[in-house]
């Protein structure tokens, strides 16, 4: 059966429905819990094996030793491709994904995030 205006009924009915659009910036969007967003580093767990650095496809991680069994992590969020391979690679679960996805910045320097092992004074006294 061929007829013109097949979609007419649905078109008219959808005029009275709520639009499917999410009004995103005004209405917050809930990402699923396990969304691969920004990476979180837990310094206490890190043992400095550098596996994450080696596996990272885009060289976005840099783990620096700042003292005895204390490590500092630098993440380049502009380089990161959010594959979270580092989370899989980490044997001690020192890395975690968060579902934070609104990472846009006006200055690329802000995309460089650093996780310190201890407060600044501690590091100074140790080194």
């Amino acid at each position, binding site marked *: 059966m061929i007829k013109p205006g097949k*979609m007419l009924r649905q078109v008219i009915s959808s005029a009275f429905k709520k639009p499917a659009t999410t009004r995103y910036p005004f209405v917050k969007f809930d990402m699923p819990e396990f969304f691969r967003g920004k990476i979180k580093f837990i310094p206490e767990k890190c043992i400095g094996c550098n596996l994450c650095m080696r596996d990272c*496809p885009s060289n976005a991680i840099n783990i620096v030793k700042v003292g005895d069994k204390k490590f500092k992590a630098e993440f380049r969020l502009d380089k990161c491709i959010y*594959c979270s391979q580092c989370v899989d690679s980490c044997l001690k679960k020192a890395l975690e994904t968060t579902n934070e996805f609104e990472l846009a910045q006006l200055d690329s320097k802000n995309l460089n995030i650093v996780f310190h092992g201890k407060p600044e004074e501690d590091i100074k006294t140790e080194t």
Partner: protein
Amino acid sequence: MDRVIIPIGPQHPALKEPESFRVTLEGEKIVDVSLRLGYNHRGIEKACESRTFMQNIYLIERVCGICSHSHSTCYIQAVEDLAGTEVPKRALYIRTLVGELERVHSHLLWLGVAGHEIGFDTLFMYSWRDREIVMDLLAKLTGNRVNYGINTIGGVRRDISKEESEEILKAVDILEERTKYYIEVATQEVTLINRLSNVGKLSRADVELLGAVGPVARASGVDMDTRRDDPYAAYSEVSFKVITADNEDVYGRTLVRVGELMESYSIIRQVLKNMPDGPITVRVPRKIPAGEAISRYEAPRGEDVHFVKSNGSDTPERVKLRAPTLANIKAVLKMLKNYNLADLPIIIAAIDPCFSCTDRTISIKKLDTGSTEIVDWKSLREYSIEWYKKRGIRF
């Protein structure tokens, strides 16, 4: 009548990616087409050679945004072939599941694009709205809407819980109902049929000669599907029909795609029903034994072929990918001839082209030799600021 040559691309509303068709017109009729590919060459094959097998998964996943699972699975199959890995059953089922969900999302995307190319924006909006269901589902299952990152060498990275599989079944029910509606629209709406049928004819003999793959080939009555002919993942354990049509035109390609959607739903249900328990990954050493392997995968757009050569270290010696669009491109040039200019967008769209899969090259930032001046991003920006300053506009 005078002949005019009009440039369709590199930038043109009909093309979603930069690619250049030079179309010779006689009035509104296309008499000749020449094609220049390569605008999307990003050098992925070369880049693969300097990364480890593990890192390459994520690189190859980014060859294309739509068939990211296809490319990464295809590559991983080749690597696992080389390493002689026995992948756990459950992992294979999860790969199949994600692959089919990806096919659903790709075909719904195509339906929308096709609608847009023939000026049927309502169809475009509706099918993309329904596609969101699959996208959200994939985000929940894998952690991302587009680059799923579910594959790893020797298995998959995430398991599927009971609740998640119930959610998938619910979503599939909704999608099935919607797809039935689209089939109704495709077989009844008169303007749609008028625009699609008898356009872009490609005979069966031409398909075989020009090596077209995927829905394009199946719409010309060629019964080929890698999922059945060269089964991978869990496809040997599910039953499905290979949808073909004898229309040999764009309308046939539409019917094949919406028919495949229905098959995908049935595959998803079977996979979820029969999914075995067990581990989802096995350990594979970082160094892959030397050798060569070729792997095939039926991507939504057609057959995907990856070739991997290893030299025994942890980086591949050569990775070669062939995307379905490159196989179909010769057929497009043949299809375009003797049709109206108005049919050009839909004929090109009918192969579901993905030019970023097709080309893959080098980011050249500075090369002093050669005839053209190649400018990097920073100096280009400085140049443009200078240009505006001269005209009294300041930033």
